[in-house]
Every structure is written in C-alpha cells, then in structure tokens.
C-alpha cells in the first residue's frame, strides 16, 4: 500500500504531461489523497517490493518515525498545493515528482534506493530553484548537489563492501569499526549539502532568495524535513550515533557562521535563508547528542522552524516593501518571526526550552551558549526586518499603489499556520507527539531491525 505514495504522484505526473496547464488544479487532490492514504496506513508495516524479503529485496518501511515524517511532509505539500498562485505552471509536474521522491526517501529501507530518491529529489529541486530565471543559482546548486550525490553513492558502495548489504536494517546489524571509519564521512558529505551544513551550503542563499515563493517554501520546509529525517535515520538508526561528534561540531559552526552572515544581509529572503541554515545547524547539533530527549527536542524544534519558515518565506517573497496593504499578512509574519526567535507564547519558545533542558541534561553547556548567542543575533535581524516592514520610512504613494493585496486563500492559509504556531505555544502536545514518535522510531534501532528483517 505504501508504494502508492510514490507511485500515484509519479503516475499522475506522467499522465498529465500533455495537460500541463490543468495539472495545477489536481495537485490538492493528489496531496489530499496521499495524506488520507498515510492516515489509513497501519504503522509498523514493512512493504517488500516484488515479494523479495529483506535484506535482498527493496523494502518500504513504515514505522513510527517514517509515518509521522510522511504526515508532516504531506501536510506541507497539501498546504502548498492550496496556494496555486505561487506555483508557476511548468513547475506543477516537478511538484508532483518531488512529492513522490520525498515520500520514497522517507519510506525506503534501502541505502541505494535512498540514493536514487535523493537524486530525484535533488533534480526536482534544481528545476524548482531555476524558477524566476535564477539559472546561475540553480546551476551552482546542481554542481554541489551532484558532487555530494557522488559521495553519497561512494558511501553506499563502501557500506555494501563493509557489510555485504544495502538494506539499512541489515547494515545496522552488521556494522563494524573498519567500515565505520570511512562510510559515515562519505555519507555525511553526501547529506551535508542538502542539510545545509557549513561550508557546503553555499547554494542556499542563492536558491532560496531567487524571489520565487515556492522554492524556499518547499525546500526549506518539506525537503529540509525529509533530509533531516534521512540524516537521523542513517546516523542514528543505522550507525548508532557513530560520527555524531563531528556532526555536532559542524552543526555549531554552521549556527554561528550562518547567523553572522545573516546579520549583514540587506535582502529579507537572503537573511531568512541564512536563518534557515542556522536552524538546520542547530538541529543537527541537537540531535548529535543522540538521546531520545535530544532527538525529541531536535525534531520538535525542526517542526517549529519549518512552520515558521513556511509563513516567513511565502510572505517575504510575495510582499513588497511594507505591510501597509496587507495587515493580516503582516501579523502572520510577525507571529512566525516571534516564534523563530523564541518569544514566549509562541511555538519557538517551547522548542528553545526543550533544547536547553536536553542540553543541560547531557551536561552540555556549549550548545546552550551558542544557541543563546545565535538567538541574540537572530533577534537583531529578524526584528529589524519586522520593524522595517511594519514601519516603513518614506514609501512613495505610487509604490504604495503598486503593492498588491495578497489574495484571500494565501492569507487564510498563512493565518491558519500562524494560528497553529500560537496554539503550539500553548499546547505543544501535537508537535511534541510527532517529535516523540520520530525520535522513538529513530533511536530504537533494535525494533527497526526486527521489524524489517523479521524476528532474527
């Protein structure tokens, strides 16, 4: 059943190639379909494609973590499909392909398969990022992404040599120190580009700040989330937390470096993309503490971050120089930015508390310091942008005329998401439950192995 999640979007994408212009209106139905499908699926189900048992066949694993990740990602796709204004007409196909590949990426239980889905995702992302005539940025992304892909492939191969298997569960069972010396490095480099780790995230600002609303709204939320899921799946479940100390350091460096870079930006989208990099770095260093609590905190934070970024990026890309004509949009933007910097009452505050708590629990005092320092810088530029947009100085009347009102459906969806941020600020249980489930699925590798390979 879970294979349908991959097959249906792909199939529709290919079926509708002749009807490129109409496909826009089918997107919500596809997204809704996969969402309902996921909700109907039973957890702890392993789908052996073609009937080949693991470790020989290709498996699609639907455990706690992949189940909830799928829900998150598909909700994002659903929400985005409801805003057809921001989807350029040629990109609807890509949207479907991206959906299929991301579903696959999350579901797959096979390392080489994940490589394939990773590449498809990347290709879709390259095409998405070339929107708004941002070809050079997309090309840079392509170069980085392909090199990273090559390394990921190398890592896959090395793990095949080391363990004799490509099945994640099987690798997890058979890991040995010799193999662990090389493979994590290769996989890490392969994933570092997509998880936006310094210094391999050079593509991010160029791509996110192309001016298109869809590109960052999907890359910084859905794609990032799935990449982070994959990262957790490979490094936590498969490698049992090996190599995470290096990730931790890289994550922290990423946080500081990205926040510093963001400070200087005079383009809101660029500033936000650096913030996105920083949050990714923070997430990676949090999950690097490799405990159930830290993973919960990390994914909880990631959820808050992508919720906020969803609102921020769409508004930043579609709004003009001020909120004068779009007050409701402005309110959503402010709520999201307050959540981003973790003011109380908003969702971001909960994740900040959770991260601090976890870090202290692990006797880790560096991470809180870096987190708080980074937040101070983030406050500086995020609030500066808020003030700039709310209290614009010397707006010319004709510019005021030119700024268009966003249409009702955009505003509605943004407001709903902003409302979610506030609700999560008071009752974080919904997000917390998702994060806890993902965390328990990732940390409990024994259950994962038995689940996939059968009771061995």
């Amino acid at each position, binding site marked *: 059943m879970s294979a349908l999640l991959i097959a249906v979007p792909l199939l529709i994408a290919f079926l509708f190639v002749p009807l490129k212009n109409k496909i826009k209106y089918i997107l919500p139905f596809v997204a809704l379909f996969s969402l309902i499908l996921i909700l109907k699926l039973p957890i702890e189900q392993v789908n052996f494609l073609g009937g080949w048992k693991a470790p020989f066949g290709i498996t699609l694993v639907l455990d706690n973590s992949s189940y909830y990740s799928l829900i998150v990602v598909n909700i994002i796709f659903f929400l985005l499909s409801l805003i057809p204004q921001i989807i350029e007409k040629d990109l609807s196909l890509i949207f479907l392909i991206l959906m299929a590949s991301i579903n696959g990426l999350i579901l797959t239980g096979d390392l080489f398969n994940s490589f394939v889905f990773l590449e498809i995702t990347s290709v879709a992302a390259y095409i998405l990022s070339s929107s708004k005539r941002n070809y050079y940025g997309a*090309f*840079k992304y392509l*170069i*980085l992404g392909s*090199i*990273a892909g090559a390394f990921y492939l190398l890592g896959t191969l090395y793990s095949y040599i080391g363990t004799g298997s490509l099945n994640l569960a099987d690798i997890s069972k058979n890991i040995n120190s010799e193999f662990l*010396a090389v493979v994590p*490095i290769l996989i*890490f*480099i392969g994933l*570092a580009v997509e998880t936006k780790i*310094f*210094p*391999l*995230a*050079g*593509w*991010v*600002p*160029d791509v996110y700040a192309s001016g298109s609303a869809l590109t960052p709204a999907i890359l910084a939320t859905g794609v990032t989330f799935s990449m982070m899921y994959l990262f957790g799946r490979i490094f936590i479940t498969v490698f049992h937390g090996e190599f995470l100390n*290096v990730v931790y350091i890289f994550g922290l460096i990423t946080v500081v*470096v990205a926040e*510093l*870079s*963001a*400070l*200087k*930006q005079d383009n809101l989208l660029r500033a936000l993309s*650096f913030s996105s990099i920083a949050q990714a770095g923070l997430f990676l260093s949090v999950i690097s503490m490799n405990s159930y609590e830290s993973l919960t905190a990390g994914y909880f934070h990631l959820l808050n971050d992508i919720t906020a970024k969803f609102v921020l990026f769409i508004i930043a890309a579609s709004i003009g120089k001020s909120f004068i004509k779009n007050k409701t949009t402005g309110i959503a933007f402010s709520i999201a930015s*307050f959540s981003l910097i973790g*003011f*109380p*009452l908003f969702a971001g*505050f*909960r994740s900040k*508390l959770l991260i*601090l*708590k976890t870090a*202290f*629990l692990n006797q880790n005092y560096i991470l*809180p*310091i870096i987190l*708080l320092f980074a*937040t*101070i*810088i983030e*406050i*500086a530029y995020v*609030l*500066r942008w808020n*003030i*700039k947009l*709310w*209290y614009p*100085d010397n707006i010319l009347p004709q510019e005021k005329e030119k700024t268009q009102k966003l249409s009702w459906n955009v505003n509605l969806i943004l407001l709903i998401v902003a409302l979610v941020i506030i609700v999560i600020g008071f009752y974080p249980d919904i997000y917390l439950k998702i994060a806890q489930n993902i965390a328990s699925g990732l940390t409990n590798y024994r259950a994962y192995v038995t689940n996939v390979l059968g009771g061995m």
Partner: protein
Amino acid sequence: MIPISYLVLVFLFGSVVSYLITKANRIVGAIFNFLLTFYALFVLWNLEIGHTEKLFSILEGVENTFKVSSLGKYFSIISLIVISLVSFFIIEWIRKKPSRPAAFNAFVLIMSAGIIGVFFSNDLLTLYIFWEIAVLGSFLIVPMGKEDSKKAAVIYVVTSAIGSYMYLFATFSIYNKYGILEFDQVSRFLLNEPSNLFKWFIILFIASAGIAKSGIFPLHTWLRITHGNAPDAFSAILSGQLVKMGSYVLAISLSVFPSTKLLASFYSGVPLLNYILIWLGNISIIIGTFMAIRQNDMKQLIAYSSVANGGYILVGLGVMNSIGYAGGLFHVFNHAIAAAMIFLSFAAVVYRTGTTKIDEMGGLIWKMPWTFVTYLVGIISLAGIPPTSGFISKWMIFNALLTKGMFVTLTITFIGSVGSFLYVFRPLAGVFLGQLKKKHYEVKEVSPVMLIPMLVLTLLTLFIGVYPKPVLDFIVSIENSLGIKPIEYSGTIIKTSLGQWDTLTVFTMFAVGFIIALVLYIIFPRGKKVELTDQYTGGEYLFNYDLYHYATGFYRFLERLYDKHPSFEKLYGMLVSFFKSMGEIINELFYKVSPSGYVFWISIVILILFWVRW
C-alpha cells in the same frame, strides 16, 4: 478577590478589545486603557500577601505559580501607578501623537500583562515568560517614535535579550542541578550548595537580566537611544516602570537569594559579589551623571540620568543591610515617580513644540507654567533635595554606605548627587527659563487631561516626602519577609545608627522659612514688572533676543575636561560592525563563491575529516 491570572488574561484580551475600540475612536480606546490599568491598580492594592495561584507546568517537576510577595506587590503597585497615570495622560496625547494609536494601546496592555506577571511570578521560569511578554509589548511600541526609534527598538531588544538569556542559562543550570525553580526553594538549595563558584554564577547571571534592563554598566547604552527616541509618553513608562523591572530582578538576585548569607563577607559584611555589583552601580552613576551633563536632547539627558539612578538602586540593594536595602527600594519608588513626572512634562512640551532639543526652546514657563511645576518638583525629587521623597532614599543610601565605611562608593554617590543638580538644571534653564523664542509665542499650556496625571504625581512625591510612612510600611514588610532587619521609624522620624531625621520638621521649617521670606517680600515695596527682553546688556543694543538665551553648551567648560572619554556605545558599535564584517567575509568566502569555490571547500572538508579520523 480577583485572581492575578485572570487579571493577566483580562489584559491580554483587553489588548484586542483596545485595538478594536481605538480603531473606532482613539480617545475612547485610551480611556478604556486607563480604566483597565486603574482597575488593575485597585485589584493589586487589595491583594493579600501569600496568595498563591497555579498557572501551568512547562517543565516537569516545576509547577509555575503566581505568589503575592511583599516585594512583588510593592513593585507592582509602583508600576501600575505609573502606567495608569501615564494612560490617563495618553487620553489627550493620543489625539495627535503616535502613528498607530490602535497598536499603541494594544501593546501597552500586552506589556502591562507581562509586567504584572513578572512581579507575581513565584519561580524563575514564569518570571522569564512574563518578562519576555513585557519586552515584546514594549519593543513594539518603541518604533512609533522618532526616526532613530527603529534602530532603538532593535538595540533595546538585543540588550534585553543578552540579559535575559544569561538569566535563562542560569535558570536551566538551577533546574538541571536541583530540579526546582521556585524562589524560596532555590534559595534553600543555594544555602546548602558547597560550590562557591556555582553560587556566584547563579547570582551574577540572574542579576544580569536586571543589569540589562535597568541600564547598569556595561549594558547601559540602550537607554539613551531608546528613551530618547521612543514615543514621548511611552518614555515615561519605559523609564518609570520598565527599568524598574530590572531593579526587581536585581532585588531578587541579591535578597531573595540571600547573598550576604550565601557568600563570605569581603568588606564590612558585604560579599565580594555584591561589591562587584556595587561597583557596576558606581560606574553607572559616573557614566550616567557625566553623560547626562553633556546632552542637548532633553529626553536623552534624563535617559542617562536613569542610568545613574539605576546605579543608585543597585548600590543601595547591593549593600544589603537594613538601611541600604530600604534605601534601594525607596529609590525605586522615587525614581519611578520622578522619571514619570519628568518624561510626562517633556511629553507635554514636545506635544506643543515638537522638538526635544534643549537649545531650540526657552522661556516656556510663561506659556506652560503647570508643566514647569511638574518638571521642577520632578527634578527636585530626582536630585534628592528635601522636602520631596527623593531625598529620603538618598539619605538612606548615604547612611548605609557611611556605616559600612565605603568611602569610594560614597564619593561616587556624592558625585552622582551633586552632578544631578547640574544636569537637571540644564533643561530647566534651557527649556523653561530664559528667553521665549518667537516661534513659541503661540504655544499654549496643555489641557487639564494631561495636567492632572502630572500634578497627581507631583502631589504624590511631595506627600511621600513629608509623610513617607506608606512606603516605609511596605519596605518594612519586605525586609521582614526576607529576613533582613527592618528599618526603624516612628511617625515621620526615620532612625538609623547614625542618627535620625524628621521629614515633617524639615518640611515645616522649610515652610516657615518660605513664609518669613514671603512676609519680607510683601511688606517691602513692589517691583515694576518689565519684559523679559528688557535686560542689562552692558550698554549694547540687542536686535535678536532669540540669541540672547544661554542654552547651547551649557556646561561646555566642564565637558571640555572629559571630551575624550572612552565610549561604550562606540565600542558596541564597533563590535556589531565587527560581527557584520565577519558575516560579510564568511558570506564572500563560503556563500557567494562560484562552483570552483564550492569544490574547493568540499575538498577541504574531506581532507579535514579524513585527517581527523585517521
């Protein structure tokens, strides 16, 4: 009895209501705000000490609660007095001033909700949450001011965040170590804590939130730009109330965690930690005083004076003996009232003239006498001259320092005190006295709606100056609840080990002296009233009376002595531009490069990784 949590909720929802009402009619919205804050003052006044309310629980093992303590009640009543009176002032002021009245009114209420929460929080986390709500509400108001105010708002929030994040760090250290966050439990655990370092760290980091908020050195730079550029009436709340939130946290970090019992004495009963904090207070007094003397912008001048007065409060609290602590607390009241008076009178002046530069005004006393009276009594209280209440607290602080033999600190408090005569006189001479400018011939006194709160504050500070019992009662109950020996007083006589004084006698004597002078004045022949422009000019003919007003560079001869002073504002500016250029370098090196650059960095990372692994 209405629970505090309902009050907070009423304020939060009231902000929405206020927004809608103000959209319809701004004056009605302002009246709504005033009624709500005044009602809150009434509710808080009737609260019983020890009343506890459960709120929520964010971290397991910690029940977030409100609890009415004497300290919190004292601070909250001061705050609400200031806020409600300023709200009354706003009823008239809002007709002309803020660019977004609806948002202004809503944010004032959000801020007030935060403030009430802060003062009744029973644990560190609740305090933090409401603290940030208050910051959020107030920071959104600041950019409605002058053109620099947008920058000011960011500086304000960042400075505040530096302090509050240090606080948060300490909070989580406590939580991690003891698993509790309630104030009294924390202090109990701290008393049994063997590690001196940990105690130092906790108290310093908790205090740093207060340091940032009350504008203590080295985080004092935000006061000038924020107070100076915020909307005029809001500056009164900023300086009169929000800064006092910082003093509250300082009071908590020094007294609720009993610093004198926790740490060994360093110099006549004062631990080294307190001594360091006292020194921070000293530096603030010096900086605040001497920088205030230099300012030509009246709001920035009083902003620097807030730095100095924050220093006074910290010095008083830091001494932590009966009289010093009482002095610090009393000074909280005095400075709150005095700063509110002064900023309100400035707001009235700006409302009429539209400028804050001292040398662009002059002689406004002839047009706005009641505003002048408010300012006069305000500065008398600020400078600590009897018979206003400002003197009582200064006297207590001097006494405390003298009994402890802290002569250097004493010197600095004297400098601050005498220096305050200098800087408060500058706007007095430049704005209200001297020659009236031609462009201000048409200026009128502000309406009674604006005058009433100003005069109420004036009467309040005079009343407390003569009859300080209400405030002293509060201070005694606070000191009792914290286990500090309460100050002694009977009626209007305040006693210390160094002697006593009677506020009433001093006032009576002043009145008698004034009457004697008045009698002399009346019995001798009347003088002839001449125009202000009719002056002794050494025989010269004057053609431009605008120039005949000494206001620019009022203390130039003194300023010259420290023109080349080191500036922390510049230092922080340099730090920020350093961060920015670091960001620029990183951006150029890593994020803006061509594909060659990416491949280069990938290779470097691979080499590093393999080198580290093998």
